[in-house]
């Protein structure tokens, strides 16, 4: 029977089976971890919902493949007979041929018609094959079966981290400190003049429309509006309600940042979306606490970042209330 080979021939039978055994164990281990992560909701911490089922499917697929490979390897081991190692550069396959190659890997094809006992040459060297049957040689093509323990150590990392219940939920305060830097805001002078002229009904410089619209806001919506001057005008002066996490700004007890971590696919692509909150009295919550805030919408300029920042100005401290946390990405 015909087959093709392109693998390195520098390992013995024992090494081949050792390598295959570790391949099966590590693959199955990773597959099982994927399934357990799905079952334990650990995926919530690192991926958006759309990825959970693909991870589960991937885990099941890998476990099934590892199971099939384990059966095939078991059969192969049963058929393998001790073969004479005729040359120093012995190599390990269940069909146990022993020959040497001038190159690291020749990517060549062998032809075998049924059980064979033959010699053929590679790189001008005579080689000899031990007998092997028709059905045992399939599928070893182009594989480097060299025993490389470092590979398996690397692959064990995700399994070990899962066993340690890592990663934890969400980014640490340290990361938030790096990402959230509340610079001084400068109000649009035109809006400021209008607010003064209109005798703003709130005790702030924010201009409230005489008949404001009540808006249930989302962070993306508000950030999107801040980037477009026309939209800023639409939103400004309305009353907006927004739910997010509390982060105290250094140097002020009346201003804080409300933020949400916007994950598009995974935690690595997370972006922190921020809205500045201005309260009339000092506000104190635990960092990361979930709060709901209602206030007048305005947009102010952060000169340090050279961009517009959405601001909610509260009428009183009753406008900020603790609320339930959520991992619902659609609500960001």
């Amino acid at each position, binding site marked *: *029977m*015909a*087959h093709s080979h*392109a693998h390195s021939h520098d390992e013995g039978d024992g090494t081949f089976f050792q390598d295959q055994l570790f*391949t099966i164990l590590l*693959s199955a281990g990773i597959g099982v971890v994927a399934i357990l*992560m799905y079952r334990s909701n650990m*995926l919530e911490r*690192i*991926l958006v919902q759309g*990825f959970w089922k693909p*991870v589960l499917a991937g885990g099941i*697929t890998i476990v099934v*493949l*590892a199971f*099939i*490979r384990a*059966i*095939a390897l078991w059969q192969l081991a049963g058929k393998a007979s001790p073969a004479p190692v005729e040359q120093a550069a012995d190599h390990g396959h269940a069909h146990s041929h022993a020959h040497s190659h001038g190159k690291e890997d020749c*990517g*060549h*094809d062998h*032809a075998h*018609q049924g059980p064979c006992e033959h010699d*053929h040459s590679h790189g001008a060297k005579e080689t000899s094959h031990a007998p092997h049957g028709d*059905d045992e040689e*399939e*599928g070893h*093509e*182009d*594989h480097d079966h060299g025993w490389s323990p470092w590979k398996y150590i*690397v*692959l064990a*990392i*995700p399994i070990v981290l899962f066993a340690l219940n*890592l990663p*934890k939920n*969400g*980014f*640490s305060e*340290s*990361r938030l400190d790096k*990402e959230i830097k509340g610079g001084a805001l400068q109000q649009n002078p035109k809006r400021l003049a209008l607010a003064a002229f209109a005798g703003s009904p709130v005790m702030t410089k924010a201009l409230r429309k005489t008949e404001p619209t009540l808006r249930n806001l989302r962070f993306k919506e508000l*950030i999107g509006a801040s*980037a*477009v*001057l*026309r939209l800023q005008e639409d939103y400004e002066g309305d009353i907006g309600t927004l739910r997010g996490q509390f982060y105290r700004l250094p140097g002020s007890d009346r201003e804080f940042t409300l933020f949400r971590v*916007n994950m*598009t*696919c*995974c*935690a*690595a*692509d997370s*972006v922190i979306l921020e809205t500045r909150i201005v309260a009339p009295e000092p506000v104190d919550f635990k960092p990361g606490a979930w709060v709901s805030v209602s206030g007048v919408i305005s947009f102010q*300029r952060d000169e340090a*970042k*050279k*961009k517009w920042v959405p601001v909610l100005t509260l009428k009183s401290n009753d406008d900020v209330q603790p609320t339930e946390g959520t991992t619902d990405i659609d609500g960001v």
Partner: protein
Amino acid sequence: MEKDVFDFVLTFISIIWEAFPFVVLGAVVAGILEEVVPQQALAKLIPQNRLLAVCVGGVLGLVFPMCECGIVPVMRRLLRKGLPLGTCVAYMLAGPIINLVVISSTYVAFGPHGIGNEMVALRVGLGFLVAVTTALIVQGQYATHGNKLLTPLAAPQQTKGPTPEVIAKDEASQVHPSQNRAGESKPFFQRIANISETALHDFIDIMVFLTLGACMAALVKGQFTTETVESISKGFPAVTILGMMVAAIVMCLCSEADAFVAASFTTLHPSAKIAFLVLGPMFDFKLLLMFTRVFRRRVIVTVFLSVFIQVFVYSMAVHYLWSYIVPTPTAAVVVEGGQ
């Protein structure tokens, strides 16, 4: 320190598990390709003209959509099945950009900024141009160096010039064994077992380097925030574009997600975002390590230099031509101007 370690683990592990389903998919497709598709069968479908063949590779993602992680094992098997190297490289580079999922996500991310169509057109157009040009360069190298450019695992199976011994053994069939192997009849379990072996082998091979790449990305990303990129690049288009290119290499984002991240850099000029969106799916830390399972150093260096230089040059061109591309000032530019 402890908190930084937790943040590192969060980023590191999320990159791995996000890519995991695609690596599995790629490995399974690779296993099926290896077992079922006869040698050279795919090559017969590709035009003989070199440029046309590379162009076909550039748009193959529309038919076989794969992300950058899954595409590496598939491309390796396609190479072994005799698909021209240029076609494979074009597919590998353009496939993660020119597919319907990524085109849609790019449009959705930039639609609210009023530049959805322009960003999609630029990303797809420049992605195709960079991929095809790079593929042609690599194809030229292949003409000189042959399979020395590839790892043994990726080198095409030999189909020409079998040794006299091989011919003698195959007189009965009159066909070289590597050509009839995938077509020959075998027990069902044997086929499944072969597919599982190839798939597991490729899975392990790619996962190892994906893990190392994710580790590198998470380490660097810990020192690197969106604010950092924005702050170092203010006012200098070349620095801005280079900054975003470095960010693309470091952040190792999936091509389905990167448009949303790019859109979040609200103060940057669209040219810098285009650089980020075109380079990222073609080259980053994790891909660099995964490429080592397919290509020798010469090809990796060529691909990197070609992609990097082209993306920079084209992005600079976009920067200076942006007002012609989008005559009406868009939100992104107006706000950047600080009005």
